[in-house]
């Protein structure tokens, strides 16, 4: 499917990424440089990095497929499912983390609650990221193989080699700055497809008119708000309670790979601005990933599998050259996801596990080396475990489901931890453990409890609510923390004043 010029674009892109990433090696002299970029990065680079690392090669295909089946309501995830949470993060949570000089979210939980909460949260994230790495390698490689005929192992080894080299040497600065280029590539490739597809269907109004006449199943395709009794996974109640109130906040405030980027900002203003700038960019993502799926309804009607929508649009619409650019955009999505996982997992392991449990008080160069070696080990594990996915085809969905168990309870303890002084270590620990258990229970018996197709939004809401109730109940019965213990960890109106000591 690729022409000569497409191969040239892809190879030039991969070599360019490698050289750019390696350039940042010279800025890494300490563990702070490696994990937090020396706290020197500007808001625009961090904002772009947040957005691009959130969207992988699989999301292009998956979201287009969902848009083909369910219509524009899929866009809720990048609109209401991002913007309010990013503003809350920008103005409330990020300043606390940034001023506290933290490296990880579990580090905050450890200071606010206790070491057990920190370890449970950190180990859960490490397990998820490590498992996700191998699965991501394989699933993306299979996708690229189907789309472009690229051999699976060449895709895995070239991605691992390039991303591994620049992440090993350049740390998070290399990750963020390569993400900036990957963002530009992704947007150029994505918008090229959208504009050419729009031309193909005769413009937006023409497309809406055609889809409206295609039958009753397309009646709600352009309604962003779906009724409560819809059979799709996106009823407005789930979008409001599960997505807006819980999952979006858990993702933007409790996800190490997102928050760590903001902590690299050169000052507090840049840390806040990175989230707000990222939220503005996020609003364009549905145009890139959702619109091609909608337009495929007109160009390729009646597909049994919605996930075929995007590949078919690329094949039928893009000319040589732009196919290469789109391929580079897929690669950009894959690389930005992999480099985020590598660096964030290395940070979690070094700061939350190695430093407190294995070797305390070593010199800074030692922790820098540990971070680099962890990156390398993770990469080897990711490549070595990637074929497991071929034996367990449902593993990607299973891992994402596993993470949805964690979102509600983790956000409940973060929220009460920062806004409620009375929340205690036992309240936080029991809310985390019981909340996760309840989410697993609801998922196992979901047919008995829920009427919609995939109730992950409802599960995250109810497990969050139980986490809040458990935290309040147990905290009320246990010994409260002293004012000294809570210094700089609980929201105070002083943060809104000139008092930098919180």
């Amino acid at each position: 499917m690729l022409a000569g010029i497409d191969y040239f674009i892809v190879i030039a892109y991969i070599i360019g990424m490698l050289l750019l990433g390696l350039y940042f090696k010279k800025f890494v002299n300490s563990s702070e440089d490696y994990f937090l970029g020396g706290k020197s990065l500007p808001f625009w680079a961090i904002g772009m990095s947040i957005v691009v690392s959130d969207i992988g090669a699989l999301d292009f295909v998956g979201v287009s497929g969902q848009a083909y089946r369910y219509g524009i309501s899929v866009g809720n995830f990048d609109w209401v499912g991002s913007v309010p949470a990013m503003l809350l993060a920008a103005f409330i949570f990020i300043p606390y983390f940034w001023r506290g000089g933290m490296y990880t979210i579990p580090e905050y939980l450890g200071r606010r609650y206790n070491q057990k909460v920190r370890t449970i949260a950190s180990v859960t994230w490490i397990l998820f990221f490590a498992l996700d790495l191998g699965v991501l390698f394989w699933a993306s490689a299979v996708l690229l193989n189907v789309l472009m005929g690229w051999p699976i192992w060449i895709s895995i080894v070239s991605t691992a080699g390039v991303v591994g080299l620049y992440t090993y040497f350049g740390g998070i600065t290399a990750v963020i700055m390569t993400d900036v280029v990957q963002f530009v590539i992704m947007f150029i490739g994505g918008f090229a497809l959208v504009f050419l597809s729009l031309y193909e269907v005769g413009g937006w109004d023409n497309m809406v008119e055609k889809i409206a006449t295609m039958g009753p199943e397309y009646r709600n395709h352009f309604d962003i708000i779906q009724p409560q009794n819809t059979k799709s996974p996106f009823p407005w109640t789930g979008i409001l309670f599960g997505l807006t109130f819980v999952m979006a906040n858990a993702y933007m405030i409790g996800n190490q790979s997102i928050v760590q980027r903001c902590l690299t900002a050169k000052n507090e203003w840049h840390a806040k601005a990175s989230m707000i700038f990222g939220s503005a960019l996020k609003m364009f993502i549905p145009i890139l990933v959702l619109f091609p799926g909608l337009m495929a309804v007109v160009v390729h009607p009646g597909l049994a599998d919605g996930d075929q929508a995007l590949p078919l649009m690329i094949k039928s619409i893009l000319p040589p050259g732009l196919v290469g650019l789109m391929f580079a955009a897929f690669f950009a999505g894959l690389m930005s996801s992999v480099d985020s996982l590598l660096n964030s997992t290395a940070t979690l392991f070094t700061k939350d596990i190695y430093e407190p449990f294995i070797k305390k008080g070593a010199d800074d160069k030692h922790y820098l080396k540990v971070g680099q070696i962890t990156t390398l080990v993770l990469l080897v594990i990711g490549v070595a475990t990637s074929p497991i996915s071929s034996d367990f085809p449902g593993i990607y969905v299973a891992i994402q489901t596993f993470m949805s168990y964690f979102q509600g309870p983790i956000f409940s303890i973060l929220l009460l931890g920062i806004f409620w002084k009375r929340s205690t270590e036992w309240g936080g620990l029991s809310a985390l453990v019981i909340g996760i258990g309840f989410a697993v229970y609801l998922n196992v018996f979901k047919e008995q409890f829920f009427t919609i197709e995939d109730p992950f939004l409802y599960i995250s809401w109810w497990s969050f609510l139980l986490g809040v109730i458990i935290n309040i109940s147990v905290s009320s019965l246990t010994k409260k923390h002293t004012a000294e213990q809570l210094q700089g960890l609980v929201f105070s109106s002083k943060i809104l004043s000139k008092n930098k000591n919180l």
Partner: protein
Amino acid sequence: MFNFDWLSDVSQETAKMIFLCLYAVIGLLVLLLPNEYVYEGIAKEDRHWWNNLKLWSIAVLSILASIYNNF
């Protein structure tokens, strides 16, 4: 209860209004933030209207509200 059946009588139009009200409330809360806090990190002589993060937030929320209003 788990399926929010008690909200089944709420129409799509009303639900849309709930989302638009949510954006308005967030916008109001952002506007209530002290300027000193919003500009924290920027030297006093470099503070201009274009690096006021309240304006950035209101702009983003306005675009979001217009998307929900039109669809």
